């Protein structure tokens, strides 16, 4: 395996992980937001869903930009 292909494999790995990690992180941020801003009366289901969706979109954008 040449150094170039090894680098490509690492980048692919990172991009793949991002596709899973960012939606999860987004969901967690949604939970944190609901708990800290509890007087905004946001439905936690919507907050988690919106956070996960946002994470997924960001992951897609990064994949598109770097892929």
């Amino acid at each position, binding site marked *: 395996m040449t150094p170039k292909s090894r680098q490509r494999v690492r980048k692919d790995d990172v991009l793949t992980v991002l596709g899973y990690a960012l939606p999860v992180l987004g969901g967690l941020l949604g939970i944190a937001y609901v708990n800290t801003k509890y*007087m905004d*009366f946001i439905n936690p289901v919507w907050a988690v869903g919106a956070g996960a969706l946002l994470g997924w979109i960001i992951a897609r954008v990064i994949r598109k930009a770097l892929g």
Partner: protein
Amino acid sequence: MAALDQTQVQVKEGVDQETVDAVREVGTYKYGWETDIEMEYAPKGVNPDIVRLISSKNDEPEWMTEWRLAAFERWTKMEEPKWAMVSYPEIDFQDQYYYARPKSMEEKPKSLDEVDPKLLATYEKLGIPLKEQMILAGVEGAEDAPAEGRKVAVDAVFDSVSVGTTFQEELKKAGVIFCSISEAIKEHPELVKKYLGTVVPASDNFYATLNSAVFSDGSFVYVPPGVRCPMELSTYFRINAENTGQFERTLIIADKGSYVSYLEGCTAPQRDTAQLHAAVVEIIIEEDAEVKYATVQNWFPGDENGKGGIYNFVTKRADCRGDRSKVMWTQVETGSAVTWKYPSCILRGDDSQGEFYSIAIANNYQQADTGTKMVHLGKNTKSRIVSKGISAGKAQNTYRGLVSMHPKAKDSRNYTQCDSLLIGDNCGAHTVPYIEVRNNSSRVEHEATTSKVDDDQLFYCRQRGMDEEEAVALVVNGFCKDVLQALPMEFAMEAQQLVAISLEGSVG
């Protein structure tokens, strides 16, 4: 009881009396002792002369005396409210003292040598930090003494007088005024005149009107615009004299963009006769300001047969006048024989917020009728109510709450959670929610549960070596955790222990 009888037998055989007394004290009211101190009383009863006497004792200006007399005039035409779910023998308002102060407090002491040692010992026994004792005793220059850890400024009220206020100089540097209300009437009459009675009018209700006529002392706080109060403020109320009512008045003003956190605590000696406590708390919150007000109420609750205790009839109200203003009430009600108390929020400013967190514990023959009022007047106002009621023994616990959405309170929101826990077969829990919605864009949610302590939970705890009382305390603390979390860190631990102590003897 069998264990106690046994100890009595052992005393006769020559066992140390102190040890037996210490054992006997476990599980009883911790602050039930009395300070043997020489007191000065106003004559018994209430009439215009007594009102004038209280006013003159505080060296008040003429306008204040007139205000009190007008309130007294109104009070004579009012009837005691009977709608609350509490029952108690009729109070003879002419058979009690309305003013009592330690004789040694006639003139403010200037050195520690002049302070009545009994007064100092009282503070020490109540657990008020030693370094603050000198200041509480009114010793000049004691404010300069360094304090350890996080500072809490204390205003100590002993029967009808404020004994002293700590850290006044340090607060003054930040622009914050924290003193007794009697001092504020003399030193800052323009502020008192502008705000006193504007949130709780002198004609508000029977007890508030009585308080307006005869209040003797209390606390005053003014936080200027844009100032974050550099330390927690607190007031400690102690009833010591027998057959004396305590009528204190608290006035808190948070000007634009300011912040203050305030805590009040209270205790009283253990007596066979009931005593009256009728307080008024007024909070004014201007634009973008925030006030957190916490109460740990530990008045004597009466003995296990319902004898004695404090009748606690209190009117507390916060007026969120400015836009985006916030208020948070947190209360832990463990003491007093009868509680009649509804801390309220008037959400006048647009986007203003009110929060109410309450734990009400009633054991033996205690009766608590408590809750809150959230009056939404401004647009997009929000409120949240979390109430936890725990009943044990033969106690009755009532949650009574009002959520009112006025026609102009568009897009407002309220969430109410009201949980009751029953321990034993002879207690009661009642929920009386009033909900008024006069516009079609507001939302109100109300959740309520009533449950008994789960046998499985107790069994699980007991399998891990806990006795039944420890297990109940653990379950109850878990039940109350939402409210305990809302208390300032310094007092959350104390409140947690208080919750456990209040339920001692409720099982088995």
